[in-house]
């Protein structure tokens, strides 16, 4: 019991809670090796919000699962890099210690909150389980804590609703319950994997506000994984744009939205419908993302890129370099992209 109730003693050393360095993940499938993540590097500080943006299959969720150590092996293998949490490499950690990191230090919430909750137990019981298992609390104390948490995530009539089952809640309320479970043990990092994708727009905003408020209360670092540029604009500090398992651009929200430095980000932002341009055909990035088992030589984006030259097709992906102060892009033609003609 004492083993469960003590928290693994890991403290941030230099303000950075999470430091991911050159992470590589591949899926060994029957159709060949799919390189899902090809050198992802980033760090997350106390109270910082990083949004990882990308389309389906770009490696956002795989990055999150690799950090949590919950990839299914086989078929997924981490083939390189480090995930340093408070100076300790999680990838080298033993599974029994890693289990104490999950939930306690780094927690995660998922896209579909209905299927993320166990249908056969009341939600209060499920939240309380976090305290019973990780903190060794008795049933009634844990239940009281669960109700407090439900109030913290702004669930009305929390005490009465703790006895309800997941299917008796609306989508937004379920996601709040999932968030309550994730923040139960005061983790330093919360990874939210598309937390609002299954919700309608007004509820999306409420959930985002809630996450922001909880972050202000506790100072946890937040990684928001999304494919929706609109969702993260208000809450994120930094945005990392992912394409084919690489960060292609990484900078603060304002500069990224104002003037992207990578052709892919340009395409993404241009394809947002705008109120001042009625009646025109909506822009779309031509072509399809390449198969991860057969990535194009050079820059993965070159077949779809209007700035591409022969240099982009030479072997080796363009490195993620600092193009302005605190702004990173992986493109040989950043200057050209930044100074492009605006539509």
């Amino acid at each position, binding site marked *: 019991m004492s083993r469960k109730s003590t928290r693994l003693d890991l403290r941030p050393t230099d303000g950075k809670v999470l430091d991911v360095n050159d992470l590589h993940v591949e899926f060994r499938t029957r159709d060949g090796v799919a390189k899902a993540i090809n050198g992802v590097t980033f760090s997350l500080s106390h109270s910082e919000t990083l949004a990882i943006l990308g389309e389906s299959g770009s490696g956002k969720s795989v990055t999150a699962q690799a950090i*949590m150590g*919950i990839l299914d092996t086989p078929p997924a293998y981490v083939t390189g890099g480090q995930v340093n949490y408070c100076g300790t490499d999680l990838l080298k950690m033993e599974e029994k210690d890693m*289990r*104490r*990191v*999950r*939930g*306690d230090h780094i*927690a*995660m*919430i*998922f*896209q*579909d909150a209905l*299927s*993320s*909750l*166990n*249908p*056969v*137990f*009341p939600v209060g019981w499920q939240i309380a*389980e*976090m305290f019973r*298992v*990780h903190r060794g609390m008795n049933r009634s104390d844990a239940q009281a804590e669960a109700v407090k948490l439900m109030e913290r995530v702004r669930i*009305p*009539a929390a005490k*009465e*609703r703790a*006895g*309800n*089952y997941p*299917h*008796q*809640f*609306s989508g937004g309320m379920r996601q709040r319950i*999932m968030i309550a*479970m*994730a923040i139960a043990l005061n983790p330093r990092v919360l990874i939210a994997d598309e937390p609002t994708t299954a919700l309608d727009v007004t509820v999306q905003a409420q959930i985002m506000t809630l996450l922001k408020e909880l972050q202000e209360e506790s100072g946890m670092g937040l990684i928001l994984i999304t494919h929706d540029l609109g969702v993260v604009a208000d809450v994120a500090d930094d945005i990392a744009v992912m394409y084919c398992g690489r960060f292609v651009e990484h900078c603060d929200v304002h500069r990224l939205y104002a003037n992207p430095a990578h052709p892919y980000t340009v395409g993404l932002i241009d394809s947002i419908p705008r109120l001042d341009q009625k009646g025109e055909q909506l822009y779309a990035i031509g072509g399809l993302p390449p198969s991860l088992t057969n990535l194009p030589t050079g820059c993965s984006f070159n077949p779809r890129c209007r700035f591409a030259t022969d240099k982009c097709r030479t072997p080796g992906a363009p490195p993620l370099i600092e193009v302005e102060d605190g702004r990173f892009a992986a493109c040989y033609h950043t200057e050209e992209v930044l100074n492009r003609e605006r539509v």
Partner: protein
Amino acid sequence: MTDQLNTTARRTTGESEAIGGSGAEAGAATLASDLSGIDATVGGPVVGTRPRSLWTDAWHDLRRDPLFWISAVLIVVFIVMALFPGVFTGKDPRACDLAAARHLPSPVHWFGTDIQGCDVYARTIYGARSSILVGILATMGTAIIGSAFGLVAGFRGGWLDALLSRTGDIFYAIPLLLGGIIILYTFPNQVGTPYIVVVLKVVAALAILGWPSIARLMRSSVLQVMPNDYIQAAKALGARPGRIILSHVLPNAMAPVMVVSAINLGSYIAIEATLSYLGIGLQEPAISWGVSISDASGLGYVRSAPHMLLFPSLFLSLAVLAFIFLGEAAQNAFDPKRH
């Protein structure tokens, strides 16, 4: 509110049936369940909503099922009979009077007497204990062994799954009755063997031969539960494998096993009777329906004293039917398409 939604659901179902195609039907079923979901969340005040889990839902359905009530009443009667036979009869089933053998039913002997002059009614009542005991213990045995193996196989996968599944297949290939005969013939009872050992031998034979079907069912059920996000979420929040199995996998995977176990209970009672009839299950001095049927079916007795065969057979059939009915009712109640 509820009525309105139900009507909508019904109408939609009707329409898609008119369009035809099982896809449309399935869609309508989903829609109907979606609507009932809305009903649960929107309808009525939020505060004080009665929590409804899979189990409370199933109970809600069961209460409306006449099949359930018939089987429940019969089962309760049989269980009381097994526990307290004295409630039903004051007669001693072992107090026999050879002078009064093979009497037809009369006010003194309601079901008549058998070849030893024992009261058939008393023997039938006392016989319930063995049959119910064998049925319940064998069901528990198969359910526990089968569930454990199925859980491990489904949860772990890989070589362990292959090993357990193939082991199960080997046992599955042996016909239950033939296997039972071989096992019980190999370990025969002596004259002084205690009653409980005799019963446990039959139970052990049934459990050894019966677990693979439960294991298969549990394994497939576990495989269905495993990809759910709540398993992944539990992992992401630091749950240990044991915790994941007990809190998340087992409660979501056990409904089919419970249904099949209830149905199996009936067939185990029937097989116990068959083995006893063949003289290798329960034996004298144990009293059981199988033993009584065996006694009654000796040469010529069926014609000269049919009551000896009729009453134990009737009770046996009723008990088997009751458990099968209960299983059917549970199956209907757990069927998500009915919610």
